């Protein structure tokens, strides 16, 4: 049977039996989504590509611990979240580099057609960068990757209530940190307070 006809579980079993090509096929099958996820979270292409490679290396090394209870992709993406969280945490410890990365790639990769002024966008980017990595992760998974609440419970391995609560806290934290933007909107559009 060709690899393309195999599901992930079969490919994982073959990889565990030492079939190198089966694992290479798994990498090719999931590389696009893993890289997109890393890029959405890290916003710097080179860093995201290195992180995505690390994800597949780590996944292979932990393959014998894969219990076939969740899908391989869910398991893989959990490794990706964890790797990106580590990188975001270390980035928070090096704020100068982080700001550099934002101006080099993050701000530019953000859609140019959002109708935001450069100042507004920079203000928002700074607010995002100041969020706790867990808050940034859940917002990215929800807003950029479009995960439903149910999918978030599986991806983050937390309850539905925890998803709702973390999402609420993350949004409020961002609104609070970019008060100027959100308050300005409020005054301009509704006249109320935020």
């Amino acid at each position, binding site marked *: *049977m060709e690899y393309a006809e195999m599901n992930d579980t079969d490919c994982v079993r073959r990889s565990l*039996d*030492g*079939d*190198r090509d089966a*694992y*290479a096929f798994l*990498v*090719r099958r999931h*590389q*696009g989504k893993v*890289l*997109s996820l890393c*890029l*959405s979270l890290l916003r710097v*292409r080179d860093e*995201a*590509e290195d992180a*995505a*490679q690390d994800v*597949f*290396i780590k996944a*292979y*090394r932990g393959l014998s611990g894969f219990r076939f209870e969740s899908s391989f992709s869910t398991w893989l993406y959990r490794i990706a979240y964890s790797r990106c969280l580590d990188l975001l945490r270390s980035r928070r410890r090096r704020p100068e580099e982080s700001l550099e990365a934002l101006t080099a790639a993050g701000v530019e*990769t*953000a*859609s140019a057609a*959002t*109708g*935001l002024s450069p100042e507004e*966008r920079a203000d*928002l*980017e700074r607010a*995002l960068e100041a969020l706790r990595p867990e808050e940034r992760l859940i*917002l*990215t998974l*929800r*807003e*950029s*990757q*479009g995960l*439903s*609440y149910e999918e978030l419970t599986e991806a983050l391995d937390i309850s539905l209530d925890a998803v*709702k609560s973390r*999402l*609420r806290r993350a*949004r409020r934290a*961002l*609104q609070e940190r*970019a008060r100027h*933007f*959100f308050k300005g*909107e*409020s005054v301009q*559009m*509704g*006249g*109320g*307070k*935020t």
Partner: protein
Amino acid sequence: MTDHESMKDRVFALHDGELPPADRAETERHLAACAECRSELDAWKRAAPALFPSLREEPPASFADRVMERLEPSWPRKSLLDRLRAALTPARTAFAGAAALALGAIFLPLESPVRADPDAGVRYAADVWEAAVLETEEEASSASAVQEYFL
């Protein structure tokens, strides 16, 4: 959490498409009437696409190869037998068997004394088979004699 804070959560759940149907009508009415909630949601709708762009990137063609190169030292070395087993799917095994038979029919007669005879290959194979059967029978008979001697 105040009632209004709780209503804001519902407004965002509605935006996320996650609000239970039973709560939708009430939340939509609130949203229509509350300038503060409307403005907060509108601001979010403007900010989110800039902050969380939907980035869909295809890795470079060499991506998987580089991963596999990095994994190479940790990849278990397979024995020749394992590699042979992995390579031999049922179809390949059948093909290999047929090829072996064909090669046997062509080359075995080279050692036979009746090489010019077109049926020599088949007869030679039959002779070899018969000799092997006789040999096995003799071995079995000697084994049985040895067994009888010791018992």
